[in-house]
């Protein structure tokens, strides 16, 4: 497919992408050679996904040029990028659950018989061959909805590579794979590499990057930082390039050492379906505990098990020393555990309902007289919450969709605080919130802890964990592998707080990567 003599599979020159005033990419150079695995690294928001979107044609760059196999890409459509030879394995996004594996692999380009009808038998045989080349046995006749997540991920990759391509984009391809499946995938990627395919590999898992990538390009805040062979990096230098030296606006959060009370939440040997595995956990009154872990580490599963959304397979949970049975979210709320979910817009609130209605929803029993909602109580609850959490809204009657992201998040927190839970679990509490509001939320978390709650924060943003938490648990493969006191992460020799924070972030990042490496080897 590559035109002969072309030494570069992808060449992005001086590419910028602006969304209104936001500069997602700023003069980025990105080059991938045929037959190399090229890691694209950076934090969330560094510009990786923008590069991928430009590469697969769904967004045109604001300025700069893109060449695929030496030919400039002029029209930016998914079809044009595909025709130019770019294949992309999405994170399960292109699979239709109600169709079979084989039907999905050949979706929109079905194999046909001589009479023009779909030849499902040929598709099944062809799909089976493709999986055999990868060394995995997935039944092509099963419905995608019925196969495990790892198999779906491999199906996604097989689908992407079932057509000839010169460039293959793999975005977090191993997040749902078992160690064994990762090996198969890496062998397969190696095979494609020897065939001259250029592979763009995006992952947060550094151990995998070090194993499979030939070169790496690191982005930070939309800018190109460095491109170099993997041999030139160590884990430390790589992390240093990725996080850089900057403050994310958490510096104004004061973290007084909390005086710890009695244990409010204790989990012993807690296991769910798949994840988590044998987790021990203790949260004290007045304590904020963070959970860090890469994608697929079981972070969210832990929260879902504690809150009764996913069933407990074994182990026990105690609240204030008392054994509790949690089989449903209702049980968790009754036991005094409240969850502020990750996906605010979908799980957290009803956007076109008012602040008051939203806060009242989980508390209807408390503010109702028989079946009638007591409007005075409901209004009082809303007013109290607005004051306590400093929610900026024109009134309690304003629709939540008119609020900023940070204030909408406060409404969600208010919903669950009204039930006066002992334990508050926050999943990605500041995702999608502007920087100023982030530190306000973190300050709020600290205040709530001081007022006598135990708080568990799950987050992929390390700066946020470092600002909010007294203790940070590192999860990997469903287990808690490290328990680090926040104070131990600071660099005692650091010249200023910024240096100290950077040191802490690097330490935590390293701990997370090592946690994975330790398990894989």
């Amino acid at each position, binding site marked *: 497919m590559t035109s002969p003599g072309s030494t570069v599979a992808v060449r992005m020159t001086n590419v910028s992408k602006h969304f209104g005033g936001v500069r997602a990419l700023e003069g980025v150079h990105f080059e991938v050679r045929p037959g190399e695995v090229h890691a694209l690294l950076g934090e969330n928001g560094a510009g990786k996904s923008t590069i991928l979107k430009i590469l697969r044609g769904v967004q045109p760059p604001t300025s700069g040029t893109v060449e695929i196999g030496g030919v400039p890409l002029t029209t930016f459509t998914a079809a044009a990028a595909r025709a130019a030879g770019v294949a992309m394995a999405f994170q399960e996004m292109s*699979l*239709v659950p*109600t169709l079979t594996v084989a*039907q999905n692999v050949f979706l*929109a380009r079905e194999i046909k018989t001589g009479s023009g009808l*779909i030849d499902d038998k040929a598709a099944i045989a062809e799909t089976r061959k493709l999986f055999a080349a990868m060394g995995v046995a997935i039944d092509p*006749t099963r419905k995608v909805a019925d196969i495990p997540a790892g198999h779906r991920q491999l199906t996604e990759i097989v689908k992407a590579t079932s057509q000839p391509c010169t460039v293959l984009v793999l975005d977090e391809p191993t997040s749902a794979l078992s160690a064994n499946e990762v090996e198969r995938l890496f062998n397969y990627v190696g095979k494609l590499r020897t065939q001259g395919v250029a592979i763009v590999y995006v992952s947060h898992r550094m151990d995998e990057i070090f194993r499979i990538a030939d070169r790496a390009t690191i982005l930070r805040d939309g800018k190109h930082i460095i491109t170099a062979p993997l041999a030139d990096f160590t884990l430390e230098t790589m992390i240093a390039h990725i996080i850089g030296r900057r403050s994310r606006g958490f510096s104004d959060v004061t973290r007084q050492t909390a005086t710890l009370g009695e244990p409010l939440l204790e989990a012993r040997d807690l296991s769910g379906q798949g994840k988590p595995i044998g987790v021990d956990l203790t949260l004290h009154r007045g304590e904020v505990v963070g959970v860090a872990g890469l994608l697929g580490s079981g972070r969210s599963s832990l929260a879902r098990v504690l809150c009764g959304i996913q069933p407990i397979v074994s182990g026990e949970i105690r609240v204030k020393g008392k054994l509790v049975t949690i089989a449903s979210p209702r049980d968790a709320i009754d036991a005094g555990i409240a969850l502020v979910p990750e996906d605010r817009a979908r799980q957290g609130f009803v956007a076109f309902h008012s602040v008051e209605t939203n806060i009242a929803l989980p508390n209807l029993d408390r503010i109702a007289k028989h079946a009638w909602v007591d409007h005075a109580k409901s209004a009082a609850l809303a007013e109290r919450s607005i004051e306590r959490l400093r929610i900026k809204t024109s009134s309690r009657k304003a629709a939540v969709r008119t609020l900023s992201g940070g204030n909408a998040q406060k409404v969600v927190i208010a919903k669950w605080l009204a039930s006066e839970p002992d334990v508050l679990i926050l999943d990605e509490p500041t995702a999608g919130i502007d920087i100023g509001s982030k530190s306000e939320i973190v300050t709020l978390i600290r205040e709530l802890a001081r007022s006598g709650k135990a708080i568990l924060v799950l987050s992929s943003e390390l700066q946020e964990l470092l600002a909010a938490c007294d203790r940070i648990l590192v999860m990997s493969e469903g287990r808690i592998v490290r328990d680090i006191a926040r104070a131990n992460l600071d660099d005692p020799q650091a010249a200023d707080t910024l240096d100290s924070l950077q040191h802490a972030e690097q330490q935590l990042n390293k701990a997370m990567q090592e946690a994975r490496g330790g398990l894989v080897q």
Partner: protein
Amino acid sequence: MTETASPSNIFANWREHIIYIGFVAIFIIFAATLGDRGFLDPNNLLNIIRQTAIIAVVAVSMTFVLGTAEIDLSVGAVAGLASVATAMGIDHFGMAGGIVSGLATGAVVGAVNGYLTTGLGIPSFLTTLAMMGIARGVAMWISATAAIPILDKTYAAIFGSGNLGPVPSLLIWMVGAGLVGHVVLRRTTFGRRVLATGGNETSARYSGVDTASVKFRVLMISSIAAALAGMLYAGRLHSGRFQFGEGDELSVIAAAVLGGTSLFGGAGTVIGSVMGALMIGLINNGLVLMGLEFSQQLIARGAIIIIAVAISQTRRH
């Protein structure tokens, strides 16, 4: 990983085949209990088919509509309008003119439904609910609420009242629509795109499926099939009347859902929908033969449909 999935799949997915099991079970029960009242009489069985064939034809196209996770509530009214248009067309231009008028009616309504749903983004539930009133109103208006007789014998014979040897033409229409629909849904790229669109629209779009165009075409097909149903009513009853097809949208949707089509899109079979229509006809016939009063028939029919749908649609979570 086992490769012997097929037999165990049938066992695991028995719910998807409940329509066939249920159909056979009800048939056997009626044959045993109502045999002496003429249930098994070939004329009675052909009658069941005559009464359900039109519903079955529209159920075929409704399978496609529901397959994309859309709905078409205007099919009954469009059938009525098409019957009137066909009768007037035959009156003015002869048989060919009548057929063209009927089908053109369906095409125009389908294009409007499709544009409003995919072009303007109005949910098909609302588009077709509004269209239901408009089509019925237009039919009343152009016919001045009177029946328009059809005197063309050939037309009537082909569209519903004639027989080919011992076989009623309605049976041929039903089998024809069922076979074409089945092959299109199972074996053509269009059918695959229909199920992909309803199964997960985002995924389908990421895979290169033009989901708006799929929905447009599906609504088009639905209206044309509804028009054909109206033409069959017209042929069978030798006239065009605005009342034809009244309430059919519910029978058709019930037939498709009974046959295993998901209201949430992405899953369904044409054969199942046809069987669903036949099963409703079978139940109606049996209840009449049992001597139930009309009120009792309504209650019994509703209960049977709820039980069947509850069994076929309940999924493990």
